[in-house]
């Protein structure tokens, strides 16, 4: 059974600081996705990572994938308050289009 774990579960950081969220998964997969969820809202797609070594960047967020280590990272550069949300990674089980979500990281950026 595929397990997807994120850490930290909660993250409180000051504006302007950098930090990294980690996503580990338990079985082979070469497709990983990052989503954002604002309180009371649905999930919004951020990044699609399709191969080992893939790196995607959008604004202050950068995501990478290491399929050999079964690890993805979401790096936040110079955080701003608008980035406060819960971030989920999701892994596609062996190309089945069956997406298993992680536990989520609740990020709060303090002014």
């Amino acid at each position, binding site marked *: 059974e595929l397990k*997807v774990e994120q850490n930290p579960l909660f993250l409180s950081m000051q504006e302007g600081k950098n930090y990294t969220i980690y996503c580990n998964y338990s079985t082979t997969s070469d*497709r990983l*996705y990052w*989503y954002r969820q604002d309180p009371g*809202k*649905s*999930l*919004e*797609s951020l990044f*699609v990572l*399709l191969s080992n070594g893939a790196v995607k960047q959008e604004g202050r967020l950068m995501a990478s994938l290491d399929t050999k280590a079964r690890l993805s990272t979401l790096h936040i550069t110079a955080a701003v308050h608008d980035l406060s949300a819960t971030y*989920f990674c*999701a892994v*596609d089980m062996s*190309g*089945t*289009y*069956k*997406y*298993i*979500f*992680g*536990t*989520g990281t609740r990020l709060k950026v303090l002014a």
Partner: protein
Amino acid sequence: EAGVAQSPRYKIIEKRQSVAFWCNPISGHATLYWYQQILGQGPKLLIQFQNNGVVDDSQLPKDRFSAERLKGVDSTLKIQPAKLEDSAVYLCASSLGQTTNEKLFFGSGTQLSVL
């Protein structure tokens, strides 16, 4: 482009009652998913459809939950009878299901409270 539509937005019922949720995916999306998201947790896959066929329902509590996708377009998820632990947001998502860089498009969800 219209997004994934879900209704109702909120539902409050008593335990042992039945409830149904409706989802209309993005036009042309072959794959449809129902997820259950309990407060503070990640979405948990309940069932995955490809057109009108079930691909995976291994996590669906079949003694009380049922889902169908007639004609391969919209879908309904039913709970009968509901339990207190069914209180959650039920999210519907869809994707094209045809390319390797698929991403899911989510609806706004139905928030269910079982009293």
